């Protein structure tokens, strides 16, 4: 500390004033983040309640709804609330958070607000894997989710191996990802062209993505996965914030850039693959959660807020998917695409020419 003080012989009043401004500025932005997260959490609670109650509780007594939500009733109330609606709402919330986290990780890593794990082909790989099982071996228990995870991890490994020549280059990673995604899509389309009508309908539904029919096993998978991913992401927070200054300065600040980059790539892909395996590739959530969070709290702090935004997006979209007039019920993925795609286009249009982040 004395290192610099001795140099500058600064007026102590000015020094105290600067220190106070530094702290005030930081406090103001921390307050904004806390406030934003609080509002999002309140919205999530409201959406959870809406998701369980809307669409009518039918012959379930209103007094039974709350106990039933915690599994304390039997019969119709138990079935409607505890077996169907609560897991569905929780799956929407948890998968949304995973997609939001995955997107935010990639956006920070690639320094581009439009990046998602899909650039390394996570959705295409998961789709190819799940479609293979759904069309060729539909009877396999847990087949589609396992095949989806396998498919996306195989594709990630292939993209990674092909991009590695002479050190990992993010730009090459993206281009190889696009190429291999194309191969997966071609393969999926081929399967569709030879399958029977019923299997095609089932596979299409999976590819659109929906939280419909998720059970407690799925919810547990998502919850444990989210917990692990958040713990790992917290560990990677500082390396990521250094790496946003460029690889050279990040190394200078004591970050092992190659190791951190692989960890972020794997974690983001893992989070997206896990969510996809349970609810299918629900579109646009990983893409728009980060930019929305950036608008709320500033790009520098968006990382921690994006999972909350993702959760609110999927849960909100699912409430609409179940209850919106004229179109409901539709798969959740239809609604997220319907809402997300225009926002995405708007994001591209408002970007400054030549912006890199």
């Amino acid at each position, binding site marked *: *500390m004395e290192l610099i003080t001795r140099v500058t012989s600064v007026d102590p009043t000015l020094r105290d004033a600067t220190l106070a401004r530094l702290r005030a500025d930081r406090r103001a932005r921390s307050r904004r983040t806390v406030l934003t997260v609080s509002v999002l959490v309140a919205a999530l609670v409201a959406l959870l309640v809406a998701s369980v109650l809307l669409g009518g509780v039918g012959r379930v007594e209103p007094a039974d709804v709350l106990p039933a939500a915690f599994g304390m009733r039997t019969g119709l109330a138990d079935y409607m609330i505890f077996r169907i609606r609560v897991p569905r709402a929780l799956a929407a919330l948890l998968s949304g958070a995973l997609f939001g986290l995955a997107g935010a990780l990639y956006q920070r890593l690639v320094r581009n607000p439009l990046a998602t794990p899909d650039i390394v082909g996570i959705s295409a790989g998961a789709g190819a894997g799940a479609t293979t099982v759904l069309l060729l071996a539909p009877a396999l228990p847990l087949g589609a989710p396992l095949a989806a995870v396998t498919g996306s991890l195989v594709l990630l490994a292939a993209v990674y191996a092909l991009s590695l020549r002479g050190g990992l280059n993010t730009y090459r990673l993206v281009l190889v990802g696009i190429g291999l995604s194309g191969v997966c899509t071609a393969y999926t389309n081929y399967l569709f062209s030879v399958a029977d009508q019923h299997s095609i309908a089932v596979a299409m539904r999976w590819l659109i993505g929906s939280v419909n029919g998720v059970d407690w096993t799925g919810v547990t998978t998502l919850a444990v996965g989210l917990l692990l991913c958040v713990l790992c992401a917290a560990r990677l927070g500082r390396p990521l914030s250094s790496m946003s200054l*460029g690889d050279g300065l990040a190394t200078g600040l004591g970050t092992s850039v190659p190791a951190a980059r692989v960890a972020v790539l794997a974690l983001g892909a893992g989070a997206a693959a896990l969510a996809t395996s349970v609810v299918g590739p629900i579109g646009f959530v990983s893409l728009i959660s980060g930019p929305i969070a950036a608008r709320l709290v500033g790009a520098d702090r968006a990382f921690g807020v994006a999972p909350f935004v993702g959760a609110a997006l999927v849960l909100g979209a699912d409430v609409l998917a179940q209850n919106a007039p004229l179109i409901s019920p539709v798969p959740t993925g239809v609604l997220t695409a319907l809402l997300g795609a225009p926002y995405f286009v708007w994001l591209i249009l408002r970007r400054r020419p030549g912006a890199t*982040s």
Partner: protein
Amino acid sequence: MTHPIEARSITAGYGKDSVIDGLSVAVPRGRITALVGPNACGKSTLLKSLARLLPVASGSVLLEGSDIHALPTREVARKLGILPQSPIAPESITVGDLVWRGRHPHRRFGQRRTAADDALITDALLATGTAELIDRPVDELSGGQRQRVWIALALAQDTPVLLLDEPTTYLDIAHQFEVMDLLGDLNEQTGKTIVLVSHDLNQAALYASSIVAMRAGRIVHQGAPEQVLTEETVADVFGLNCVVVPHPRTAKPQIFPLGRRTLTQEK
């Protein structure tokens, strides 16, 4: 005697091509050393190798006598700071938040920022004249302000050795001298060892007490400005004829290039 930073017959470059081959250099402690030389002579490559940003294909870089690649990178970051030529400011980050990142190597995982961190950041902002900008987004600043913010980050890192790649490029002449004065003050009053890549020989002569002249990946001259900046050396290193005269106030050597058209204007 160990040197703060030293290269022993290192070979380094990009891909298969080595830019520097079997180069050795020892940086004198507590001084400002300027690396000068023509474009593509390997001075940036040398700086990056000294800062472990580039791996060395052979030879070793020693930080206080120990192999820099064998030390944990965070430990290195507490002893050696590097300001690359074009660092990236993340979108909408404020000056205060950016400079705070200079404290990263000093924090363990989960550790909160301390009063000492804040004091250092404050001093770094004041020393670089950027205190007024604390809450401004970095991407809205002028080039000169931005460069001073980057130097503030490097100061907040608080390392005994600081390497800078062309710290005054993109700055107007007043800001250039402001930055060089700041580095001079830091060096003189705290004994910080500073190594910088410079394209400006006259500035290097005024501020550095040790000059390393490179050509084609090799060190061709090393020593005090008076020894290195001679008419013969400049012709040898840059292939440029010049007149060297002592600075009217400091008597440091200053070069006046003689271009092909300069002589036709001779009075």
